[in-house]
């Protein structure tokens, strides 16, 4: 038997190694020194190391592990967004009840595990690595959703996410099987090759495969009509995890969305492009309309996430360099806008009895201006108003859509944004303006995040550095990139060039 030692680019896989080592160390630290609170620090170090190793390989695209992974600027930029979000999540998780209940070490190593899945997913260029990465990303998240062990909502959230996520994975896997059956290749490039070689253009086998894979990915990115789990899961999960899920999962799933549809299925453009455009339009409408009547801020952000996913899907639909760049830009902007909002929600959740209900932010403008400003900026940015990164992101996306002859989808984005104003500004109005009707303060609300566990744990949570700091930072970055967007535009255009350049 002949044995050829495979060539391994250790530099290329070093971020993955760093994360794996991080997971082991965090887990063991919790076992051997359970009294010391080392987990958050060690997790941050692991994340920083990974980010550093990724930045080190910026602008140096390479193919890893016999073509299973491709580390290019798209993968790096998406990974960096995920890592950054995870970093915020670690800070926001300080003093979080979930970390106490589930064990700090376990919580953080699961978080790192999910990040590992995301970093892998962003690089995946093979059906196998794609699926393995997706599961590595998802399984820790199922558990993390349920880490608030004593709260029924959290357990429900975890279970729901597990079931729906499994359906999504199964659908995706089934679709992959069709593609593999048709082309005999698991490699993205090989699939494209197989479609051309076997004359499978528009073949039902391939079409079913594409449809099922798209549905599976739509489950993960919470694109309507596969979004029903999103509000429930977002609401039930511990808030830092919701923030992580809302941003990082979406980023990673969109990365593979781009790569899969561009590299493997680029030749089938005419078949899937209108379908994805329709999904994007449905998502925009369903998400925005769904968010209108929500009193729970996390549910509202869940629905708004559905709508935003619809906007971002536009970047996939046009399949162009500017589409990809605009998607990466929007994801980065979206990360900061959402993190600012979630940081504030974490703070208010701990210091009021209202949980994540909109009443929790009533009068925030006078009570805690340092939290009110970030939330205001976040809401205005999500609504796409100027002088925030959200505006530039929408501008970039619409430009890509118009260039790609999808002006009608751009109009949909504009219409969706109008609807969204109603619910984003409702939050702003609650913070700064006189309430519509006075509620007796201290009365326990009967809805939305108002289980008995929602008692304030820390009446000063809104002034702690680990709440105010992330909130202010994320908001400041949102404004910064709204006024000086050039650095982020360049960052995103690298990612676009990686796929199309």
């Amino acid at each position, binding site marked *: 038997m002949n044995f050829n030692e495979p060539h391994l680019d250790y530099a290329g896989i070093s971020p993955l190694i760093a994360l794996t080592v991080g997971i082991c160390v965090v887990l063991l630290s919790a*076992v051997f020194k359970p009294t010391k609170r080392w987990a958050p620090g060690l997790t941050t170090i692991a994340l920083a190391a990974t980010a550093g190793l990724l930045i080190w390989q910026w602008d140096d695209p390479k193919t890893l592990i016999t073509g299973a992974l491709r580390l290019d600027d798209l993968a790096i930029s998406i990974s960096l967004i995920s890592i950054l979000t995870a970093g915020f999540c670690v800070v926001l998780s300080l003093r979080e009840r979930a970390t106490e209940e589930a064990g700090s070490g376990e919580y953080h190593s699961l978080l790192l595990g999910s990040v590992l899945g995301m970093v892998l997913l962003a690089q995946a260029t093979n059906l196998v690595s794609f699926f393995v990465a997706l599961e590595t990303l998802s399984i820790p998240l199922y558990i993390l959703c349920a880490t608030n062990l004593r709260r029924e909502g959290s357990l429900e959230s975890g279970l729901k996410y597990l079931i729906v996520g499994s359906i999504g994975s199964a659908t995706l896997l089934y679709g992959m099987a069709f593609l593999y059956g048709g082309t005999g290749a698991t490699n993205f490039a090989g699939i494209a090759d197989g479609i051309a070689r076997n004359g499978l253009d528009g073949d039902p086998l391939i079409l079913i495969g594409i449809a099922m894979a798209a549905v599976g990915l739509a489950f993960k990115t919470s694109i309507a009509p596969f979004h029903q789990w999103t509000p429930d899961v977002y609401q039930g999960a511990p808030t830092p995890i919701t923030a992580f899920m809302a941003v990082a999962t979406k980023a990673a799933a969109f990365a593979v969305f781009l790569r899969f549809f561009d590299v493997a299925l680029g030749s089938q453009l005419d078949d899937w492009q209108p379908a994805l455009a329709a999904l994007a339009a449905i998502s925009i409408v369903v998400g925005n309309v769904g968010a209108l009547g929500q009193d729970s801020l996390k549910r509202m952000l869940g629905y708004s996430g559905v709508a935003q996913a619809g906007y971002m899907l536009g970047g996939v639909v046009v399949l162009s360099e500017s589409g990809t760049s605009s998607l990466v830009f929007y994801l980065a902007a979206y990360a900061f806008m959402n993190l600012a909002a979630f940081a504030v929600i974490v703070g208010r959740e701990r210091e009021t009895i209202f949980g994540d209900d909109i009443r929790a932010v009533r009068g925030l403008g006078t009570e805690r201006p340092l939290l009110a400003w970030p939330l205001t900026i976040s809401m205005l940015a999500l609504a796409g108003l100027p002088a925030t990164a959200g505006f530039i992101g929408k501008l970039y996306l619409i430009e890509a859509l118009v260039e790609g002859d999808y002006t009608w989808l751009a109009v949909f984005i504009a219409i969706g944004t109008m609807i969204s104003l109603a619910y984003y500004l409702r939050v702003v109005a609650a913070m700064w303006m006189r309430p519509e009707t006075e509620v007796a303060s201290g009365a326990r609300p009967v809805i939305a995040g108002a289980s008995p566990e929602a008692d304030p744990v820390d009446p000063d949570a809104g002034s702690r550095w680990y709440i105010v700091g992330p909130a202010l930072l994320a908001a400041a970055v949102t404004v910064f990139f709204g006024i000086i967007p050039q650095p982020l535009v360049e960052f995103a255009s690298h990612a676009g060039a990686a796929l199309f350049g």
Partner: protein
Amino acid sequence: MSVYNSVDGHLFLPVLKTYLPILVFAFLGLTVGGIFAMLNHLLGPKKPARETAASRRQGEPYESGIPVEPTKGLRFGVTFYLIAMLFILFDIEVIFLYPIGVILKDADSVFVLGEMITFVVLLLVAFVYVWRKGALDWR
């Protein structure tokens, strides 16, 4: 265009061909199983006229002395599941050592050793975690 009438069969037929052994296997399995089930009925002792406790037990399939249908109140300790799950996890993971074992001698390389050590260390971390968490204590 469609797979179903691709006469040259460059796509659909090869796929079918690879599934042939499975079809044969399924067919054999069903046939053999069915024959034995029928033989039981044909050759086994017939039901006596009067039903007693002993005769009822006689009619049941033999299950190593354990009642076939457990009573509703029967409970397993949660520890049992835990241990069983851990066993399955580690048991299956160890299977991954098998391919390395096959090529170990031919390969004769430090790389393979390194791979194996990495794999075992990862397993070890999990094992240490499980052990220190007390999941192996039977309480």
